């Protein structure tokens, strides 16, 4: 018997696990039959769908990595024909090709339902005015949240990212009560409001904020809550798993509930891949069990966190994870955008004027992230013209912006300026504080 949406959050663990198992079996059958990638993998590993008898059997399945997504780009994971697909989102990859995630009509609807569930959990109701300050477009953060908010029935202002003056005007005109925003932009916006002499507590109607797309600390959350006079919630998601709504904080604000009717949650040792018990920090591994167009099994998210072992005081039975503590790879996030240093390197090394040495410096200026790329220029390309150097700087800047969706600051350097390093990670200097 299907469980009603309103009951699912508090469903007894046993029943929740029954749903998990039946959906898990279903999805394994599905990919075994129709996904070109998993068909191959299952055959190589000698696994048949009949081998799955419990959710715990998931540990016999191989992991899926971001390299798998890239190598099978764009259609290698699909279990539906293209005429059943209604949307694609992409996120940046590590070596040029993005990762593409496809959705059927039902997938979009299920993803929206999860976002609506998250919003409802935090107290959002029809009558609220929701201003979505995340980028729309290929990035899932904007559109998926938008669909979820409409599903819940709040008034949605699809403001998108940036354009601070307009954002303030919209908040005032429509008496916005809820924001979806990156924590760094929330702090920047607070500075601008202060400069304009606008007290957000008195002159705006905000009561709830969803802070996502960037890692941050409890302290930052508290700071934002006190500036705006709101209750702020951490949302967790990644494009490969639908985007926002994978997990969310409840009013207890102690950990992020992962919706286990839609995902199987594991934490593994990033080196050995061994499953770790609750309470132990490791890499989050997620499996979609309610997505039809493109199921992904045991996806190595690269996010480091641990699973809470104790039940939540709110009574929800879906287990919680901690705030994201870091990454297992060298990916970093600038203004809500995921960036892999290898991508920056690829673009730089395809620029003939650039020598081998470069450095990525991440700083925070007026609460906003700045990615500064310092590159050494080959001697023979210097022709004495400052204009040509400036033009080169612009060229590097716009290339990075168009490929990685972050506008960097570019500093050209004489050869031999930067310290010679061996490891890739030391090329990234993160001066930001969480």
């Amino acid at each position: 018997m299907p469980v009603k949406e309103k009951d699912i959050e508090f469903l007894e663990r046993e029943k929740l696990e029954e749903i998990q198992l039946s959906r898990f079996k279903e999805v394994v059958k599905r990919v075994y039959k129709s996904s070109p990638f998993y068909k191959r993998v299952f055959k190589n590993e000698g696994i048949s769908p009949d081998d799955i008898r419990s959710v715990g059997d998931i540990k016999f399945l191989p992991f899926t990595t971001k390299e798998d997504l890239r190598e099978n780009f764009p259609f290698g994971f699909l279990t539906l024909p293209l005429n059943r697909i209604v949307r694609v989102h992409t996120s940046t990859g590590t070596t040029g090709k993005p990762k593409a995630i496809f959705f059927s009509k039902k997938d979009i609807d299920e993803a929206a339902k999860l976002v609506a569930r998250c919003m409802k959990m935090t107290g959002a109701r029809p009558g609220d005015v929701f201003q979505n300050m995340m980028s729309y477009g290929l990035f899932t953060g904007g559109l998926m949240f938008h669909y979820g908010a409409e599903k819940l029935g709040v008034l949605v202002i699809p403001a998108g990212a940036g354009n601070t003056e307009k954002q303030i005007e919209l908040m005032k005109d429509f008496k916005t009560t809820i924001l979806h925003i990156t924590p760094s932009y929330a702090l920047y916006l607070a500075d601008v409001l202060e400069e304009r002499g606008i007290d957000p507590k008195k002159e705006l109607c905000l009561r709830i904020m969803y802070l996502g797309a960037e890692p941050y600390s409890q302290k930052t959350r508290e700071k934002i809550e006190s500036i705006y006079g709101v209750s702020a919630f951490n949302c967790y998601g990644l494009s490969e798993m639908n985007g926002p709504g994978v997990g969310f904080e409840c009013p207890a604000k102690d950990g992020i509930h992962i919706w286990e009717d839609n995902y199987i949650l594991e934490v593994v040792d990033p080196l050995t891949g061994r499953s770790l018990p609750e309470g132990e920090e490791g890499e989050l591994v997620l499996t979609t069990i309610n997505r039809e167009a493109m199921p992904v099994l045991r996806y190595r998210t690269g996010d480091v966190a641990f699973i809470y072992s104790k039940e939540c005081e709110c009574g929800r039975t879906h287990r919680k994870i901690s705030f994201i503590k870091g990454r297992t790879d060298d990916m970093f996030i600038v203004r809500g955008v995921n960036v892999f240093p290898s991508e920056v390197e690829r673009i730089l090394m395809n620029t003939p004027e650039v020598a081998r040495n470069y450095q990525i410096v991440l700083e925070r200026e007026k609460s906003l992230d700045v990615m500064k790329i310092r590159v050494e220029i080959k001697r023979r390309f210097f022709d004495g013209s400052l204009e040509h150097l400036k033009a080169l700087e612009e060229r590097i800047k716009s290339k990075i912006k168009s490929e990685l969706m972050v506008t960097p600051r570019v500093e050209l350097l004489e050869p031999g300026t930067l310290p010679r390093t061996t490891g890739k990670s030391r090329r990234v200097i993160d001066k930001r504080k969480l």
Partner: protein
Amino acid sequence: MQKKIKQVSVFARNEPGRIKKITEVLADENINIRAITIASGDDYGVVKLLVSDPLKACRALKKEGLSVALNEVIAVQMEDKPGGLCKILKIFTENKINIEDAYGFVIKSGEVAVLVINIANIEEGIKILSSQDVRLLTEEDLYRL
């Protein structure tokens, strides 16, 4: 006669000590600096020098690992008095020549000043200036005057 002058340009980070480093190298090689100017961006700039031996200067600076380029510019002699520069610029304006970069310095106070200019078409510039009552300086002139 060679009417073009060689200018040494050096790519330098915008931080204390960079220009000192350049002048140190030149001093060690016994090269005299006639003029220096800096075109500056935010983080870096280009130091432009007129020196007694541009080729030697170039070699010495390169040996120190600096990014160096030799460019050609025109040096025009002016009278060091009011209107001296204006007279030269009038010629450029009348001939619709756009100056991309320029700087000036005095050689003999009250008598001789020099305007160093960079334009897109140097040959054409030299032709026009030569047809006027203007003296273009050679590299030897710069140090003889």
